[in-house]
């Protein structure tokens, strides 16, 4: 903390003043690099926005480059920083937020960037769930929210019809889920239920909508000394449900991270829990297209008091990075980053991205604009993600604000491994969650130790 404030004091004063005049003296646009982790078709849509920004002004030219999956992009950015070749802007998935927040001078906090460059972005208009995820406790923004998503359930309407289920009514509770899954199985659907991002949808989102803590200290928002709490009875009960469904062949483990998407996209799965951002892919690839794609909110256990409340966001945000341990950015470069971010906050850009992809409309203005165009009546289900974020009155609790745990990528891997072992029948649900807690807490303590200073 001390380091950051000092750096700010030293950097901010001399650079802010000579900003306006000499910038135009330079020949050619200022080159900025931007690394992202979105595969096609999303990556192409994102790069289109970047080229529109480039065309909209002459001073800055941003070069986007795809760096593999989200975790790979994160690793690449960190390796880049260590060798003083970090990109100006990196897209970081929400799981990396804890790590990035503690990254000291590797990152340029958004509030500092805006202050120094004098660029303003109306964050009041951003959805609270989105804003809260990327801000400090006092509300200062650390990163630029962009492609926020939440987990929803997609279902194959044709599969529902074939199994004799009403394609316009999706199961709301887990009891209904299981009943529907059994019907689908009997109706010849090979994989009634599967999931992408298994820990995100089945542990993290599950805990949030049931208002159950994932970790202490408001899931880590309260400090680095948080501890995992996922071996609670509700969580164990849910893992048991999945294990039972696995044995009944109504639930199929689709693989780690986003691998499960493929099972739904090719039509072999009846229902999937996935990122709302997967909508673009499903519309393109699912046999039957958009008419066949059903969207519903995440199911819950209706005997849990107070459930369901809002789900949490996922997806990614854009972080401004310094080039290396001893290399800060020039005022011009910061200016370019800030202007790009301001461009991304434009209602038109946010609205287009939302309707093209299925990611959330991150500002209220964009949501209202899209609603006014009648998009949601033409595309039933496209507003499910945002409604789900506001479920339970939209009052976030400490359990549903989000997750801010350091080293969470590793914790997720540990949870996925333990879930896999449980689903193989090598351990009970209780053991799986106990092991996840033990292994995850080791990661948290190591992170706390290396980031104390």
């Amino acid at each position, binding site marked *: 903390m001390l380091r950051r404030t000092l750096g700010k004091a030293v950097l901010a004063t001399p650079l802010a003043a000579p900003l306006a005049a000499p910038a135009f003296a330079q020949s050619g646009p200022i080159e900025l690099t931007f690394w992202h982790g979105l595969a096609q078709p999303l990556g192409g849509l994102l790069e289109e926005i970047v080229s529109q920004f480039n065309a909209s002004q002459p001073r800055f030219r941003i070069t986007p480059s795809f760096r593999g999956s989200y*975790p790979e992009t994160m*690793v690449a950015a*960190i390796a880049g*920083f*260590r060798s003083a070749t970090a990109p100006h802007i990196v897209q970081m998935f929400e799981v990396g937020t804890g*790590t990035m927040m*503690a*990254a*000291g*001078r*590797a990152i340029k906090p958004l509030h500092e960037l805006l202050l120094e460059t004098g660029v303003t972005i109306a964050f009041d208009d951003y959805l609270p769930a989105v804003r809260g995820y990327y801000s400090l406790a006092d509300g200062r923004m650390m990163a630029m929210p962009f492609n926020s998503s939440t987990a929803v359930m997609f279902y194959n309407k044709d599969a529902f019809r074939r199994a004799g289920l009403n394609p316009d009514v999706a199961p709301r509770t887990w009891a209904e889920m299981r009943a529907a899954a059994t019907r689908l199985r009997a109706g010849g659907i090979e*994989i009634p239920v599967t999931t992408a991002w298994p820990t995100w949808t089945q542990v993290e989102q599950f805990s949030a909508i049931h208002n159950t803590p994932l970790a202490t200290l408001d899931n880590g928002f309260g400090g680095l000394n948080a501890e995992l709490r996922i071996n609670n009875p509700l969580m164990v009960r849910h893992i048991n449900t999945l294990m039972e469904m696995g044995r009944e062949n109504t639930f199929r*483990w*689709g*693989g*780690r991270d986003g691998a499960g998407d*493929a*099972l739904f996209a*090719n039509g*072999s799965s009846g229902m999937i829990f996935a990122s709302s951002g997967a909508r673009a892919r499903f519309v393109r690839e699912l046999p039957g297209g958009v008419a066949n794609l059903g969207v519903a909110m995440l199911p819950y256990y209706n005997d849990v008091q107070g459930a369901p409340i809002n789900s949490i966001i996922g997806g990614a945000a854009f972080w401004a990075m310094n080039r290396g*341990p001893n290399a800060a950015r020039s005022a011009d470069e910061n200016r370019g980053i800030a202007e790009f971010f301001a461009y991304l906050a434009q209602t038109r850009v946010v609205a287009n991205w939302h309707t093209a992809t299925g990611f959330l409309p991150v500002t209220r203005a964009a949501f209202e604009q899209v609603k006014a165009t009648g998009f949601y009546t033409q595309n039933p289900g496209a507003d499910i993600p945002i409604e789900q974020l506001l479920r339970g009155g939209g009052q976030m609790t400490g359990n549903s604000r989000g997750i801010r745990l350091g*080293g969470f*990528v*590793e914790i997720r*891997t540990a949870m*996925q*491994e*333990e879930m*896999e*072992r449980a*689903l*193989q029948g*090598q351990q009970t649900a209780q053991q799986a969650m106990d092991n996840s807690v033990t292994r995850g807490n080791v*990661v948290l303590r*190591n992170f706390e*130790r*290396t*980031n104390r*200073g």
Partner: protein
Amino acid sequence: MKKVYFKGIALPYFLLLPQIIITGLFFFWPAAQAVRQSFLREDAFGLSSQFVGFENFTDVLSDPTWLDAAFRTLLFSSSVAILALGAALFLAVQADKHIRGADTYKTLLIWPYAVAPAIAAVLWLFMFHPNIGIFGRMLNALGVPWDYKLNGDQAMLLIIFAAAWKQVSYNFIFFLAGLQSIPKAVLEAAAIDGAGPMRRFWTVVFPLLSPTAFFLMVVNLVYAFFDTFGIIHSLTQGGPGKATETLIYRVYTDGVMNLNFGSSAAQSVILMILVIVLTMVQFRYVERKVHY
């Protein structure tokens, strides 16, 4: 043997220089870095680091999941070596016979060696993926519950076969060359003495092949230990659970994915020591029993 002496010492060192530079740059320098790193604990961005002595080593060696990985690696490597050597020897013996189209047969057998590990893995994925693979679907249709994404034993079996398949070609070339260098006279003499084909193979051919077999065993073990990363990464990512996580894959997960550079470096150093010891033991004891 004729010995050649150089005058002075400048010329020999000069001639050695390219090799020394390459070894220094690609082996000694990174190895030294790993040793240094293994005594430190750092945050992901390298902004703060702390000397922790042997703590990284004791952490690794007392971690049950690491010990599991060590045992698993042993199982994996020996399975790959035995399978690849056995299959290659069988094929080489067949190719050594006078058969029609022997050249085509040999070329086809050598082919897999030119395939990059990641490509080989994708090939196996397209064959054995439970949902999109030809054989994967076939197995499921036949009632075999094949799903290597969730069944650890099946996943292990798959990577053993994929890794061994890739190495068979290499072994095949060496075995074939070894077979062809066995003097015909010895075999004919044995035949005249009344030894059948099986007996000739086990008492004459096999002992004469043992130098080749020994060399290949070392190469295969090293291959299975260190060069199978691409196959594991593309097929299973070490999963399900940790069912296919070998030591080298573990170094990658901890270092590259989880950004625990200290622990990852400590594991690398342990591996390095292990390889040095293994190589010494192998050459000292096993080589003595080999007939040259």
